């Protein structure tokens, strides 16, 4: 219903940020709502979005997170596509005449020339150039010669500062290595090795270095790799003067690059369009999300780049009842009683009992906390791998107060109501359910959906044009089919709640 436009119904995540339900995740192990802000994002796989080639992470790092075969247009940042042209191949007799042309069209065109064929038939050879289908930029624009093969042979534009970058990188790599070795050395001296199995030398008090000294060898020193010296960069306040003709000649903006074009080529940031070179396309990642509290995966995509499916998908809309605002009964006026129609949908395979509350149900909160604690300590993943607890500590959940306030007074519902389970086959049933005894506020009910009428009064001091926000706690029973402990087999039922804010509209004039 709120496709492609912001949803008026927002759920408060357990970290305190408001989100529509389609941006939220639900951790079944905690069990709590999570948003993109309070989960840890991990790289599942690197791939090129153009050629859909999966690239392992080490190779991706080696290639600077760029695809080896695909290029982006330096002009408009679209993908370049190779174009084939038929180039007449120069025959032996004419080769001397067209030597310069030959050199331009690539080195590998001459071996392919059938020099033994003296026929008068003009032979052609396929040559490739890269062209942008959006802005019609081609590699010929900047004088890159056409290539004999479509991919793989395009030259890298070496930046002016490449050597400098390389020496800097070398220097800092060796620096890191040195620091690491020094640290290891320090730790070895500070704390004697606690080996599980005491070795003979430990018993006798002989260490390797002692033995070496007794034999008369020098202490081996691996750690004394001196980093190569680098010359520090020098800042200068002198800037070249503007050319004199800039004040007299009209500037041709077409030969000057735009800011985004310069930024897309960060190594040299050219000022003229004839210095634009095709840029290797950046890799994309598939991302898996992990709950920071219990370390379970919330989202895990399938590995292959061509697949858009998930192996684990704990989206909130599969677990939490969805609230959709249908309409307000009357135009919104400050201090005037009004009613809003809300549609609740149960996405789970179990019946839900829902009640709308004005304040947070306290004991439920504690229970949820307890479950969470349990989840943390009893998580099989933690036990099995002994995940570093330091990482756990660093990502401890910071509770944030929900700052958004409701500015309307709700009339609480008389009783909780039941949302039936989702049953896909019921959609096709013809027979209408027998009308049963329903609370007064329920307008209609069909399968797993309920439309209810909620009465409210916007605050009296609201001014025209101000948004009226309804806020309540929705408490719902959730049947958890995964169990944290091994012995339990029955699904457990939790009473969960989430805070919901509805922007019902603005006060009329």
């Amino acid at each position, binding site marked *: 219903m709120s496709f492609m436009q912001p949803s008026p119904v927002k759920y408060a995540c357990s970290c305190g940020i408001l989100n529509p339900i389609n941006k939220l995740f639900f951790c079944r192990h905690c069990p709590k709502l999570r948003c993109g802000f309070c989960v840890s994002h991990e790289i599942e796989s690197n791939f090129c979005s153009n050629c859909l080639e999966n690239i392992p992470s080490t190779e991706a790092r080696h290639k600077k997170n760029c695809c080896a075969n695909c290029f982006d247009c330096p*002009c408009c940042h679209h993908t370049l596509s190779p174009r084939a042209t038929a180039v007449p191949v120069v025959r032996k007799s004419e080769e001397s005449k067209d030597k310069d042309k030959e050199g331009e069209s690539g080195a590998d065109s001459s071996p392919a020339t059938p020099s033994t064929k003296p026929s008068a038939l003009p032979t052609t050879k396929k040559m490739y150039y890269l062209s942008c289908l959006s802005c*019609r*930029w*081609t590699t010929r624009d900047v004088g890159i010669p056409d290539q004999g093969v479509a991919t793989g042979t395009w030259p890298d534009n070496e930046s002016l500062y490449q050597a400098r970058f390389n020496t800097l990188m070398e220097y800092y790599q060796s620096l890191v290595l040195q620091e690491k070795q020094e640290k290891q050395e320090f730790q070895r001296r500070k704390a004697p090795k606690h080996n599980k199995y005491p070795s003979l030398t430990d018993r006798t008090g002989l260490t390797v270095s002692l033995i070496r000294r007794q034999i008369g060898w020098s202490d081996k020193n691996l750690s004394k790799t001196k980093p190569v010296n680098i010359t520090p960069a020098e800042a200068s306040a002198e800037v070249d003067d503007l050319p004199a003709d800039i004040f007299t000649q009209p500037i041709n903006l*077409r030969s000057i690059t735009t800011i985004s074009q310069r930024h897309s080529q960060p190594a040299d940031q050219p000022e003229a369009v004839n210095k634009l070179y095709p840029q290797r396309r950046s890799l994309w990642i598939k991302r898996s999300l992990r709950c920071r509290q219990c370390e379970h995966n919330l989202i895990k995509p399938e590995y292959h780049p061509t697949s858009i499916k998930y192996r684990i998908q704990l989206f909130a809309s599969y677990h939490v009842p969805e609230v959709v605002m249908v309409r307000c009964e009357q135009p919104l006026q400050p201090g005037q009683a009004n009613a809003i129609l809300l549609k609740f949908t149960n996405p789970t395979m179990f019946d839900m009992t829902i009640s709308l509350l004005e304040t947070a149900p306290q004991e439920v909160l504690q229970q949820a906390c307890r479950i969470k604690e349990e989840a943390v300590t009893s998580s099989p993943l933690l036990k099995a791998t002994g995940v570093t607890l330091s990482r756990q500590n660093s990502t401890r959940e910071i509770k944030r107060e929900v700052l958004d306030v409701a500015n309307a007074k709700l009339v609480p519902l008389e009783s909780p109501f039941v949302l039936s389970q989702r049953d896909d086959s019921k959609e096709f049933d013809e027979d209408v359910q027998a009308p049963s005894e329903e609370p007064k506020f329920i307008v209609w009910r069909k399968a797993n959906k309920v439309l209810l009428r909620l009465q409210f009064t916007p605050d009296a001091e609201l001014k025209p044009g101000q948004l009226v926000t309804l806020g309540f706690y929705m408490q719902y029973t959730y049947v958890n089919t995964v169990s944290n402990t091994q012995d339990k087999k029955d699904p457990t039922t939790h009473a969960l709640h989430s805070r919901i804010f509805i922007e019902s509209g603005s006060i009329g004039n």
Partner: protein
Amino acid sequence: MESNIKIFPKSVVCEESTLRGDITFSSGCVVHPSATIIAEAGPIIIGENCIVEEYATITHRLQPGASWDVNKILSIGGHNVFEVGCNVEASRIGDKNVFESKCYVGSGVSVSSGCVIGAGIQICMAQQLPENTIVYGQQALQREAIEKQGSQTLQIDFLRKVLPNYHHLRKPNYDPKKARSVV
């Protein structure tokens, strides 16, 4: 306003196209069905080997207060491509231009040669596009191509073969050789 349509030999003009006013198609032109060409203010002369695709509209629009003027000719050069759904009201069009899908070129725009008006671009202000201008992207950036766009010979040959199989054509009704012989 009477319709006076001259079609040179070797051009393919579908009958389902909407043609109004004094229009001359030089040889080798291809006009798809449901293309619209309206000569309101004066005659339109379309050069050789132009392609006018479906739903493309070329208008020689009457300025307010003006009337039909035989001498006010909109001359469109050769090898132009008017892609699907473009709307061109330009005052002058040179050779080898490409008007991409759904673009709009307002009256008073003078398009020289080798220009490409990108898909969805709207040019409304009266201006002169220099040669080899390419207008592209959402912000309608301009750049200069190094060479003119290649001609669509293969496409024209293909259309000339295919279109008569499925559409009724307007007959070529004007032969320059014959006309000369008459004179």
